[in-house]
C-alpha cells in the first residue's frame, strides 16, 4: 500500500481540475466531487498508515531535473510522521468538505470554493509526502496559494483582498528565509533529501555554524507559515476567508505546516543548540504574546485566530525543548479541537450573521448541538483533565521543564491560564446571558453538525493515544519504538489543572456571573488595554518602518529612474544630436575646412599607425 502513497494527494488534485473545468455546470454537485475525492484520499491515507504499521519507511524518487551531473529528484516517502500527518490532514479536510456543503450553500461560486479546497488539500498532502526539502518548498508555497485563494474568496470585499495579499506576502517573507536556507544547505550537502542532510549533520560535513544558520533560516519559513511572532499578523486577518477555510487551513493543517517542517528536519535542529533555543524562545514568546491579545478581541474568529497562534507557539516551544513527540501530539489534538471550535464558531456565525461577540449571547438554548460541542472544544483547549488538550499540553509543559528552561516553563503556564480565560470569556459571552441580537438563530443543518460531532468525539478521544496512564502509543509510533517517556514531576499536571480551572473561574466571575465588572482591566490599565486591543501595534510598527522604508526606497528609485536614468537617455540622445549638429555645422561649404579635417584624420591614423605598428590592442 505504501508504494501507492502518491495517489493520496492525487484525488484532491483531480477534484480541483474537474471542478475548475466543469464546476460551473455541476453547481451543487461540485460538493460531492470534493467530498468523494477527499474520502478516497482519506481511505488511501489510512491504507498507507496501515501499511506503515506493518512495515518500515518507504521512499521512491524520480528524476525531476538534471543540472550537469547533479540530479534533483521528486518522489514521496512514507515515514511514521508522514503517515500520521496524512491521516490527520485528509480526515480534517474531509470533514471540512462535508461541513462546507451546508455552510457555503447558496454561494455563487460554490464550485470554485470546492475547487480551491481540493487544490489546498492536494498541496497539503503533497507537502506531507515530500521526501526532500525542494519538494517540500514547492508544496509549501502551493499550500500558501490555496490559503491565499481561499482568504480572498470573497474577492469583492476590500478587506478580503487586503487580507489575502497580506497573507501571501507575509508568508513569502518567511518563505524566502526557507529558500535561502534550503539552497545554502544544498551546496553543503549536495542534496535536498532529508536523509542526506541528516547524514551530513551526523558525520560533521555540515559545520556547526552552517547548521545553526540554515536551521534558523528554515525556521523563518516556519515562522511565516505558522504565524509565529513576528510574522504572525497575517493570520488574524486571514479570518476574512470563509469559516470552514479558517478551520481547515488556518487552524488544523496549513499553519501546522511550520511545526511539521521543523519536526521533519528535527535532526538538523537537534544538532544546533542555538537553533533549538531560538525555536523554543520564539514559541514561548508567541504563546504568551498571542494569548494576551486574545483576551480583548471581540471578533469570535479573531479570538480563535490568536488562540491558534498561541497554540502553535506551544508546539514550537515543545520542539525547541526537544520534545518532538509532544509537538506532534499537540498538533494532532489541536487540529481536532481547533477545527471543532472554528466549525462551531462558523455554525454560530451562520446562525446570527455576525462575528462580533458583543452582539451574541444566550445561544445555549438556540443551538443545542453547537453550544455543547463548543464547550467540549473550549474545555479541551483549556487543558481541563480528561480532555485531549490536557494531555498534550501537559506533555509540552513537562518537556519545557525537563529541558531546564524554567522561564519558558512559567511562560507557558501563564499562557495556559490566559488560554482558559479567554476561551471561556468567549464561551460565556456567546452562549450565556441574554441575547443581544435580533432575529432567529437556528441550529445548522446536519451536514454541518455531523462533522462537528465527530470532531467533538476526537477532541476528547485523541488525548488517549499518548497518556501517562495507558501508554505512549503515539510516541512509540513516531520513534519506531525507541521512545522512552521521561517521567515529569507529578506536580506539573496539578499546576496545569489548577491554572486552567482558575482561568475558567475568572472568566465565569467576569462574564458568567458578573461579580467582577467587565471593565475591571480596561479601567485599571487603559494603556495596557489599548495596547492589547491594537495587537501591540505590531501592524502599525510594520506600517511605519518596513512598509515606509520600502516605499521610500521605491519612491527614491522612481526619481532616480525618472531623472538620473532618463538623464542618461537624454545624454545619449543629446550627444548624438549634438554630434549631428556639430557635423552639420562642419558642412560650411569651405573646401579648405574639409581638406583640413581630412588631413587631420589622416594624420591621426598615420600617427596611430606609427606608434602601434599597425595593431591596436
Amino acid at each position, binding site marked *: 500500500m505504501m508504494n501507492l502513497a502518491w495517489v493520496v494527494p492525487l484525488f484532491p488534485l483531480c477534484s480541483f481540475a474537474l471542478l475548475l473545468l466543469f464546476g460551473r455546470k455541476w453547481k451543487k454537485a461540485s460538493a460531492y466531487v470534493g467530498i468523494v475525492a477527499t474520502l478516497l484520499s482519506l481511505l488511501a491515507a489510512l491504507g498507507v498508515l496501515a501499511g506503515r504499521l506493518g512495515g518500515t519507511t518507504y521512499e521512491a524518487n524520480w528524476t525531476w531535473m538534471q543540472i550537469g551531473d547533479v540530479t534533483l529528484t521528486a518522489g514521496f516517502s512514507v515515514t511514521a510522521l508522514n503517515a500520521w500527518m496524512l491521516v490527520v490532514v485528509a480526515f480534517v479536510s474531509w470533514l471540512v468538505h462535508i461541513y462546507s456543503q451546508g455552510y457555503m450553500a447558496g454561494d455563487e461560486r460554490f464550485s470554485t470554493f470546492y475547487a480551491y479546497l481540493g487544490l489546498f488539500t492536494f498541496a497539503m498532502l503533497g507537502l506531507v509526502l515530500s521526501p526532500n526539502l525542494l519538494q517540500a518548498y514547492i508544496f509549501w508555497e502551493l499550500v500558501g496559494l490555496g490559503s491565499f485563494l481561499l482568504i480572498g474568496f470573497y474577492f469583492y470585499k476590500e478587506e478580503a483582498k487586503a487580507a489575502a495579499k497580506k497573507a501571501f506576502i507575509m508568508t513569502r517573507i518567511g518563505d524566502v528565509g526557507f529558500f535561502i536556507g534550503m539552497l545554502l544547505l544544498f551546496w553543503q550537502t549536495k542534496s535536498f533529501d532529508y536523509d542526506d542532510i541528516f547524514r551530513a549533520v551526523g558525520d560533521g560535513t555540515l559545520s556547526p555554524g552552517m547548521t545553526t544558520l540554515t536551521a534558523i533560516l528554515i525556521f523563518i519559513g516556519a515562522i511565516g507559515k505558522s504565524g509565529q511572532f513576528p510574522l504572525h499578523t497575517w493570520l488574524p486577518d486571514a479570518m476574512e476567508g470563509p469559516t470552514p477555510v479558517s478551520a481547515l487551513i488556518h487552524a488544523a493543517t496549513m499553519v501546522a505546516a511550520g511545526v511539521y517542517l521543523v519536526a521533519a528536519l528535527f535532526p538538523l535542529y537537534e544538532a544546533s543548540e542555538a537553533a533549538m533555543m531560538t525555536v523554543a524562545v520564539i514559541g514561548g514568546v508567541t504563546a504568551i504574546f498571542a494569548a494576551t491579545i486574545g483576551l480583548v478581541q471581540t471578533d469570535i474568529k479573531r479570538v480563535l485566530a490568536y488562540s491558534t497562534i498561541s497554540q502553535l507557539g506551544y508546539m514550537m516551544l515543545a520542539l525547541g525543548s526537544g520534545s518532538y513527540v509532544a509537538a506532534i501530539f499537540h498538533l494532532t489534538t489541536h487540529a481536532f479541537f481547533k477545527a471543532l471550535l472554528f466549525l462551531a464558531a462558523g455554525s454560530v456565525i451562520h446562525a446570527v450573521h455576525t462575528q462580533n461577540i458583543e452582539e451574541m449571547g444566550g445561544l445555549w438554548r438556540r443551538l443545542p448541538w453547537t453550544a455543547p460541542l463548543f464547550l467540549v472544544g473550549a474545555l479541551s483547549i483549556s487543558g481541563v483533565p480528561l480532555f485531549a488538550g490536557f494531555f498534550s499540553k501537559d506533555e509540552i509543559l513537562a518537556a519545557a521543564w525537563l529541558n531546564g528552561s524554567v522561564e519558558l516553563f512559567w511562560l507557558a503556564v501563564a499562557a495556559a491560564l490566559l488560554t482558559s480565560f479567554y476561551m471561556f470569556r468567549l464561551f460565556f459571552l456567546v452562549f450565556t446571558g441574554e441575547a443581544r441580537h435580533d432575529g432567529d438563530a437556528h441550529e445548522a443543518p446536519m451536514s454541518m453538525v455531523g462533522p462537528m460531532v465527530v470532531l467533538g468525539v476526537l477532541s476528547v478521544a485523541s488525548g488517549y493515544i499518548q497518556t501517562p496512564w495507558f501508554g505512549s502509543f503515539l510516541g512509540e509510533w513516531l520513534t519506531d519504538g525507541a521512545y522512552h517517556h521521561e517521567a515529569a514531576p507529578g506536580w506539573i499536571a496539578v499546576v496545569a489543572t489548577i491554572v486552567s480551572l482558575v482561568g475558567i473561574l475568572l472568566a465565569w466571575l467576569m462574564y458568567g456571573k458578573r461579580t467582577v465588572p467587565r471593565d475591571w482591566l480596561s479601567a485599571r490599565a487603559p494603556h495596557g488595554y489599548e495596547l492589547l486591543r491594537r495587537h501591540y501595534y505590531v501592524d502599525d510598527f510594520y506600517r511605519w518602518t518596513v512598509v515606509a522604508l520600502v516605499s521610500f526606497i521605491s519612491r527614491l528609485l522612481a526619481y532616480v529612474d525618472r531623472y538620473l536614468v532618463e538623464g542618461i537617455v537624454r545624454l545619449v540622445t543629446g550627444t548624438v544630436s549634438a554630434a549631428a549638429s556639430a557635423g*552639420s*555645422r562642419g*558642412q*560650411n*561649404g*569651405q*573646401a*579648405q575646412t574639409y*581638406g*583640413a579635417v581630412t*588631413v587631420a584624420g589622416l594624420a591621426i591614423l598615420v600617427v596611430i599607425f606609427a606608434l602601434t605598428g599597425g595593431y591596436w590592442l
Partner: protein
Amino acid sequence: MTLSAYLALALILFCIGLYGALTKRNTVIVLICIELMLNAVNINFVAFAKYGAHPGVHGHVFALFAIAIAAAEAAVGLAALIAFYRNRKTVQVDEANSLKH
C-alpha cells in the same frame, strides 16, 4: 647622398604645399601649392628610380606622366578659376561656399 635625404626634402616640400593649400585664401596660390605637392611626389619618384630597391628609369617615366597630368590639372584648374571669377567677381577660396548645409 642617401635616399632618406631626398625623401625628407620631398616631405618638407609636400608639407609646405599641403599647409598652403589648406590655408591660403587666394585660389591661384592654392593651385600653386598643389603643384608644389605634386613636385614633391615627383622628387620621390626620381629618387627611388636611383636609390630604390629596383633602380631603373621607370621612376622617371612615372614622373613624366605626373608632370603631364599636373599640367592638365593646372590648365583645368585655372579655367575653372576664371569661370568662378566671372560669376562671383572674386578669387577667394572661402567665398566659394554655396555647397553647404
